């Protein structure tokens, strides 16, 4: 057990937890856009930065990967935290002006207007999709290309990615919901990754529930007989 204070409130956390996990369990709000508890912290969005004092030293750190320690004093409401949080979100809103998720967050943390020139990206480059594909699915179907503000998420050479099984995990984790998955006439289509795959119908209820690529991958990964895998989650 680790005892720390967050914004003056005593919090008990578990050894190995991050400041963000401890704060969220204690009901203290820290915004994030690139954090998901199932994947490794990435520390790219910088919205979760807090001031942490350990002994005599105060540091400005990302809560999503900073480990808790006994006697630690965390502040999520200092001027510095607010100033950085607001400007970082303002910068993201200039990059992607049409994302409702950013507008909602802006209301919460008090960004009133965007003072920078806007471009019309839809991807905030949080890397959640790329990392989920690599860490959870175990494939590297998509990745980053370019550097600086030319950075973007894409498939290799912008061609249909061979490893992609159209599982849709990237779409599921996307915090701004810009990776659409369509299902039409027995096909699953992910326009963003230039991929289309025929779907498998459940052998019991007949509903299309996964792609043939997924089936092949699951068979290979799990070693389960195909007839078992052809049954959808509802009918199992």
């Amino acid at each position: 057990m680790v005892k720390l204070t967050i914004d003056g409130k005593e919090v008990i956390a578990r050894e190995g937890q991050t400041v963000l996990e401890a704060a969220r369990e204690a009901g203290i709000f820290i915004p994030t856009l690139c954090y998901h508890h199932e994947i490794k912290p990435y520390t790219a969005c910088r919205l979760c930065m807090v001031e942490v004092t350990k002994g005599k030293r105060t540091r400005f750190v990302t809560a999503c990967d900073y480990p808790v320690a006994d006697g630690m004093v965390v502040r999520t409401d200092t001027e510095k935290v607010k100033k950085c949080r607001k400007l970082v979100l303002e910068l993201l809103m200039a990059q992607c002006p049409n994302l409702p998720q950013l507008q909602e967050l802006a209301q919460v943390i008090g960004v009133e207007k965007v003072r920078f020139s806007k471009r019309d990206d839809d991807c905030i480059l949080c890397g959640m999709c790329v990392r989920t594909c690599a860490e959870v699915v175990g494939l590297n179907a998509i990745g980053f290309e370019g550097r600086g503000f030319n950075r973007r998420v894409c498939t290799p050479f912008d061609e249909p990615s061979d490893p992609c099984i159209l599982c849709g995990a990237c779409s599921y984790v996307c915090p701004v919901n810009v990776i659409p998955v369509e299902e039409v006439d027995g096909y699953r289509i992910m326009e963003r990754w230039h991929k289309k795959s025929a779907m498998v119908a459940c052998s019991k209820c007949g509903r299309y529930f996964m792609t043939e690529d997924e089936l092949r991958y699951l068979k290979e990964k799990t070693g389960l007989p195909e007839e078992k895998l052809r049954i959808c989650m509802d009918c199992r």
Partner: protein
Amino acid sequence: MRRLESREDLERLREEALSRQPERFISLGMGTASRAHGAEVVYSALKEEVAKRGLDVPIKATGDHGLCGYAPVMVVYPEGVLYHSVKAQDVPEVVDAVGKGEIVERLLYTDPMTGKTYTYEQDIPFYKKQMRLVLGPMESVEPLSIEDYLCCGGFSALAKALFDMKPEEIIQEVITSGLRGRGGAGFRTGWKWEDAATRPDPVKYIICNGDEGDPGAYMDRCLLEGLPYEVLEGMIIGAYAVGAHEGFVYVRKEYPLATRNVQEAINTLRELGLLGENILGSGFDFDIQVVRGGGAFVCGESSALIASVEGRVGEPRSKHVHATESGLWGKPTVLNNVETLANVPFIVNRGGEWFASIGTEESKGTKVFSLAGDIYNTGLVEVPMGITLREVVYDIGGGIQSGKAFKAVQTGGPSGGCLPASQLDLPVDFDTLDAAGSMMGSGGMIVMDEDACMVDVARYFVKFLTEESCGKCVPCREGLRHMLEILDRITQGEGTMEDVDLLEELGYVIANASLCGLGKSAPNPVLSTIRYFREEYVEHVRDKKCRAGVCKALVHYEIVAENCTGCHICFKECPVDAISGEPKAVHVIDQEKCIKCGICKDVCKFDAVKVV
């Protein structure tokens, strides 16, 4: 080459080398800077002329001597007669003079400020104020000659470390020395080593960071090219101290000569048994591989560099866990800069206390700078910490060219700050430069005269950093982009006073919230120029004026009627036919057509074109 099995073998080889070492020789700087000035042709000519005359004067092709603006530089030893800007056609005369013990006056160095001519290297002010420690052996060592390096005491520190000291004693010496990382962050080397050494993991790594990427800076290149054994010796000692058995030298792709010399030096050390299993019979095993970086600036950052060595995309990660705990492939890893490692043999040989006697309270030893910009003596200099900027700029650098006024000195590479004349008496050390809004960085030092526009300078560096930002974190990726946009606006005369405030706000957030050192230091050029040269920003915004005449949108060219002789040269040279006028009559520039290229001003011999 025969393998050295013991310390005695090493000393025997040293004695042999010393007995063969010539007293009289010619040292010719042959690093990249010298080659760019034609040193290779001079070298061939020297060889040929010496052979033709049957002189017994060996020629050493060494690393750059430092006075790079005057390359190729050659020094005739033992007297130390220095000739500069030597061309192939000068060589017969020089060799004749060497044969007869005479001096070629016209190739001697003349101080541009005082007009005084110097015969001997050691008397030239450029060298006199320097303290050449790591660069010390440069002129007498052929980069790949193990004999030359042994004659300068090479590998005596390694032998001392392996046979007379325990690893913890070496670390203690380095801690006592106060040596701080020369790559920029200035972290204490001894503490880093101690932290890695105390980790229980049996597998540890040491990496030498030679991914020097600051424009105009080439301290590490010069060391790797000219004294690869010195750097490698420091690295082997470091490996022994922390318990690493495998090391990597990370060199950027743009340094072909450095890469080649380091690789060949490693090969020689393997043959000699100074790398590999059971080094000098001590029982210590260690080997080094060279890794070539692809040239991304951000790969100089430690966590990005480690990712790159692992074969992943060179992007930084959060560093709450230090590399000394979990670095390369998750193992304890020590990452030191080239110059840091080059200091180690000196500390081991002469002791930490000796090293700590040089420099200031918190910054010990010497620092190599690459001095560039509008000064007379551009090149590589090594000075004791605590020397003032004024001494570097004026005494060593020879002052501002063409009698112009000093405006600013930028220290620390593209993300360093610009310091004005009022800060010239600051001592050069890590903490003072930080407090003044600049930084030590890896050792770039660019001097600017009155013709530099400080807003444009800030814009230039921010542009570089915007292009080099990896794009992972928001403040650096998006913040720098907007900083550049705002600076573009101001230099085009379209800025507002709110823009200047916004630059400061962006600067604060980028510096505090960015993920790695690149982002954290990136606002320095902007914040320091606003701090020291605010009036120039105000002039650009409010008066639509650029006092240096650099920002094209804010200036125009005019012909001063009184000075114009009608020589007609501007008429002929103007690329867009914007100048009209008959020969021998006053000329006029058509402002509609003028593209402000400045050629007319450059070609006018009568000072008749002015920038308004």
